[in-house]
């Protein structure tokens, strides 16, 4: 008999032993004289089940997980004998956690072989580009504008308007940059997609290139993501040999080249102007805006800089039409958001859903609370620059405006869950410390404010003139918020002030129950 299995090559699955499982499957199959084919797919994003092994059957794909190398002999025996196994999860598509999602951007992630162009096409790939090539560039941009897509990096600026601005400039050279510098803790959607469905990004950026008249694109990602870099680079080679990149894209008159560039451990390079400085080969110092990158971007040329998730939404919008995308969501937040649930959580992973779901549903219902089994005390939404939310705010719907109204932000869609052992003054101090480590140093509020902030919170934690020092931190946060050049200094106050506002009892002389881990 012949068996077709899927074992993810996603970094999150590799970190918990997916390669060992694949090796064990090969040797167990050899020992049993069974012919076996193992496809290394991306992750479905159900990380508590990783490594998630899937078996292709006539009824669909059956899941088993989390599988360790030690489980493999019994698992393969069960598969051969068509008997149940203790790790059996049934049909993967029927797992409620996955079934409840609306997967538009992540429709193929975990399903296809990431580097198979045939597989990509068989699952609807390149239909967006095919349609875009039948439209005028203006019509493509109009489609993106009508879809209501807003920048998925966090700022939420309408993508169509950014594209229009660049398309209206005239220049000898324009650029498209994908910001895949996903440095926020609690986020991994960009990494998952680059490892699990790289062609969707290539297609999205190609559509952007032809719409705005750019011939060169860069994907700027992180050195911390070696697997994503390798997969993305190979995918670009494959697309190039298939005539989908380079001169005469897909037989048209458009030219579009694509290249992956790797950062070097600087968080601030996720800020678009610092990113462009870095791409130009300089220190990642933030630029003052204006001029906007759309007018004066990479090497001084008009440049579209979008988040990876924004580009990855484009093929669906062009293929299914703007309305199909805009039909999802609430208020001014249209479409879906790939939300990442992480930290101390029972069922962590990627949950793509329409805007509007409440924070409480995401944490308690979908996330299942903490894996330590203790009560959830706080969640940080939107990365290291995002606010800490207490349970009292769990009715907040996931939406750009609703989060802003509660002095928070959704950022890149990461949610980090903390249980009741968390010391919130320590988290506030970390926010300042992180800003101090990562500050590019160009503006004073961020460069000096962050260090003074960490020192002052230390004083509060030691019990020195607590009320006065809290007032000082609040005042300093105001200065950083209003006086910083970019979101690093400007948004560091979010975690600090939210911790102070919602968890004031943690600010003062350290309680004996709170243990310092450092």
């Amino acid at each position: 008999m012949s068996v077709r299995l899927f074992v993810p090559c996603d970094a999150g699955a590799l970190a918990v032993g997916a390669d060992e499982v694949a090796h064990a499957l090969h040797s167990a199959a050899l020992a049993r004289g069974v012919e076996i084919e193992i496809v290394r797919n991306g992750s479905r994003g159900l990380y508590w089940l990783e490594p998630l092994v899937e078996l292709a059957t006539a009824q669909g794909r059956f899941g088993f997980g989390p599988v360790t190398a030690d489980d493999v002999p019994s698992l393969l025996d069960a598969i051969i004998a068509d008997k149940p196994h203790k790790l059996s999860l049934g049909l993967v598509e029927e797992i409620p956690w996955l079934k409840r999602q609306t997967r538009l951007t992540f429709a193929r992630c975990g399903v296809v072989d990431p580097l198979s162009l045939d597989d990509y096409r068989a699952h609807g790939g390149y239909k967006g580009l095919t349609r875009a090539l039948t439209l005028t560039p203006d019509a493509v941009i109009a489609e993106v504008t009508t879809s209501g897509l807003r920048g998925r990096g966090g700022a939420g600026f309408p993508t169509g308007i950014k594209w229009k601005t660049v398309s209206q400039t005239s220049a000898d050279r324009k650029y498209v940059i994908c910001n895949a510098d996903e440095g926020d803790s609690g986020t991994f959607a960009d990494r998952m997609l680059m490892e699990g469905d790289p062609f969707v990004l290539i297609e999205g950026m190609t559509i952007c290139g032809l719409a705005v008249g750019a011939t060169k694109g860069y994907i700027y990602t992180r050195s911390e993501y070696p697997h994503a870099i390798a997969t993305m680079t190979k995918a670009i080679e494959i697309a190039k040999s298939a005539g989908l990149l380079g001169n005469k894209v897909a037989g048209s008159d458009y030219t579009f080249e694509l290249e992956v560039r790797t950062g070097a451990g600087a968080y601030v390079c996720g800020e678009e102007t610092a990113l462009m400085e870095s791409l130009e080969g300089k220190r990642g110092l933030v630029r003052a805006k204006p001029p906007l990158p759309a007018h004066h971007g990479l090497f001084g040329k008009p440049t579209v800089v979008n988040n990876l998730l924004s580009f990855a939404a484009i093929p669906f919008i062009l293929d299914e039409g703007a309305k199909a995308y805009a039909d999802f969501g609430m208020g001014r937040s249209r479409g879906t958001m790939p939300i990442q649930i992480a930290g101390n959580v029972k069922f962590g992973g990627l949950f793509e859903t329409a805007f509007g779901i409440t924070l409480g549903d995401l944490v308690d219902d979908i996330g299942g609370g903490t894996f330590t089994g203790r009560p959830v005390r706080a969640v940080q939404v939107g990365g290291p620059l995002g606010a800490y939310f207490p349970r009292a705010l769990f009715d907040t719907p996931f939406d750009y405006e609703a989060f802003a109204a509660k002095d928070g932000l959704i950022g890149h869609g990461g949610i980090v869950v903390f249980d009741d052992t968390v010391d919130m003054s320590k988290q506030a101090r970390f926010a300042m410390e992180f800003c101090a480590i990562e500050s590019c140093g160009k503006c004073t509020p961020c460069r000096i404010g962050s260090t003074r902030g960490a020192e002052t919170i230390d004083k509060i934690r030691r019990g020195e003139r607590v009320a006065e020092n809290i007032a000082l931190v609040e005042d300093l946060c105001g200065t950083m918020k209003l006086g910083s050049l970019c979101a690093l200094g400007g948004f560091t106050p979010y975690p600090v002030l939210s911790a102070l506002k919602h968890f004031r009892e943690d600010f003062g002389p350290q309680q004996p129950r709170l243990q310092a881990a450092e």
Partner: protein
Amino acid sequence: MTPVYETWEAARGAEIIAEHSKMEGATLPILHALQETFGYVPEDALPMIASALNLSRAEVYGVFTFYHDFRAKKAGRHVLKLCRAEACQAAGGDALAARAEAKLGIAIGNTTADERVTLEPIYCLGLCATAPSAMLDGRLVGRLDEARIDALVSEAQR
């Protein structure tokens, strides 16, 4: 797997620089390539980069020192990076980091006296749903607990 690096030779360095110097914004790709080859960026390479790219030495030095990744000297034989960001903190990463520091007898950011292990912080490996996580010489490890961190530390010490 211990990474194997070449010993610095100016001619080899010049070859690497020449390979990349026609790229747009070549400084970072060159620094990465040099570090991948030699395990660090030799000081002698900086003026060579400057002259190849028509930049001042100060500019190249400025870029080299700005980014956390680039090393001025070789790391220990093994590099153990522990994720210190929020998702790993929430999952108990602080206590595990303290445990690794105690076992190795060094604070994060240092190399053991026998030059076997360099212990470094990393701010997010993107494995936040299988936290806490670490990277030993490029190999990722998630769902760390006391037993796993002990095993990683002993592996690094070998």
